[in-house]
C-alpha cells in the first residue's frame, strides 16, 4: 500500500487525470454559460489530484504538491473572492460592476436562448476562477492532510 496501487490503476490514472484536469478547467471557465461553475469544476480538478494521490501514494507525488503550497493558494483564492466582493463597494458590496460595461467580460447578452458568448457575465467568470482555485486547492489539501494523517496512524 505504501507505494500506491496496482499497475492497472496507475496506468488508467495516467490516462485519465489529464482529461479530468482539462474537463475541470472547462467547467470552471464556462461556469456562466453551461452547467457548472467554480465549485463543480474545482471539485473535478481536485478529484484528479485525489486520483493521483490514491494511485501513486503520497510519496509518488512528492515535490509536485505539498500542503503548504496548497494552503497558500487556497488563501489567495479566498482573498481574491473577497476582493471581488470589495471591488463593488462603491455601489454595494458584491455589486457586479463589470457586467454590461463593454470592458473585461462586459459584453451584453442577447435575451432568450443563444449560443453563449464567453465574453459575458461581468465579474461572474472572475469569481468562478477565484472559487475554482480555492476549491481545487482546498479539497486537495484536505485529501493530502487526511492521507498523511492516516499514514501516521499506520506507522504508529
Amino acid at each position, binding site marked *: 500500500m505504501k507505494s500506491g496501487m496496482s499497475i492497472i490503476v496507475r496506468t488508467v490514472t495516467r490516462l485519465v487525470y489529464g482529461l479530468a484536469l482539462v474537463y475541470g478547467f472547462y467547467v470552471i471557465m464556462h461556469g456562466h454559460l453551461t452547467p457548472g461553475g467554480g465549485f463543480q469544476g474545482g471539485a473535478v480538478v481536485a478529484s484528479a489530484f485525489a486520483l493521483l494521490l490514491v494511485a501513486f501514494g503520497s510519496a509518488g507525488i512528492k515535490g509536485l504538491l505539498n500542503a503548504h503550497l496548497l494552503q497558500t493558494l487556497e488563501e489567495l483564492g479566498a482573498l481574491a473572492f473577497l476582493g471581488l466582493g470589495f471591488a463593488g463597494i462603491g455601489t454595494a458590496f458584491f455589486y457586479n460592476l463589470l457586467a454590461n460595461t463593454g470592458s473585461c467580460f462586459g459584453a451584453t447578452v442577447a435575451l432568450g*436562448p443563444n449560443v*453563449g458568448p464567453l465574453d459575458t457575465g461581468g465579474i461572474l467568470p472572475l469569481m468562478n476562477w477565484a472559487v475554482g482555485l480555492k476549491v481545487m486547492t482546498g479539497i486537495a489539501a484536505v485529501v493530502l492532510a487526511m492521507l498523511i*494523517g492516516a499514514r501516521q496512524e499506520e506507522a504508529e
Partner: protein
Amino acid sequence: MNLGNMPFVAAALLILLGIYAVLFKRNLIKIVLGISLVETGVNLLLVTLGYRTDGIAPIFTLAPRAGPMVLPTPQALTLTSIVIGLATTALLLSFVVWIHRHYGTLDVRKIKELRG
C-alpha cells in the same frame, strides 16, 4: 395525502433513514454516513421544491426550446448546502481518524470519557 407529493415524501424518508443511522448505529463511520444521508435528503427536498412541471434547466445557452424553466433559487441553495455538507463530512472524518488513534476503536459504547 395525494400521490403527487411522493417526491417530498421520498426526501423525508431519506432524512429519516439518516436520522435512524445517527441514533441507532454504534460505529462512528456509520454515524457520519447517517449525517450525510440527512444532508442528502434535505438537498433532495430543496431541489424537488424548485421543480416546475415540464420545465427545462434554467440555462439559456443553446436552450432546447423556449418553455418554462425550473426555479433557479433552490438549485443555488442546494449547491451551497452540498459544499457545506462536504465541509462537515471532512471535519467529522478527521475527528474519526483521531478518535481511532486515541481509543483504538470506533464503537461509541467504548468512547465515553466525557460523561456528566
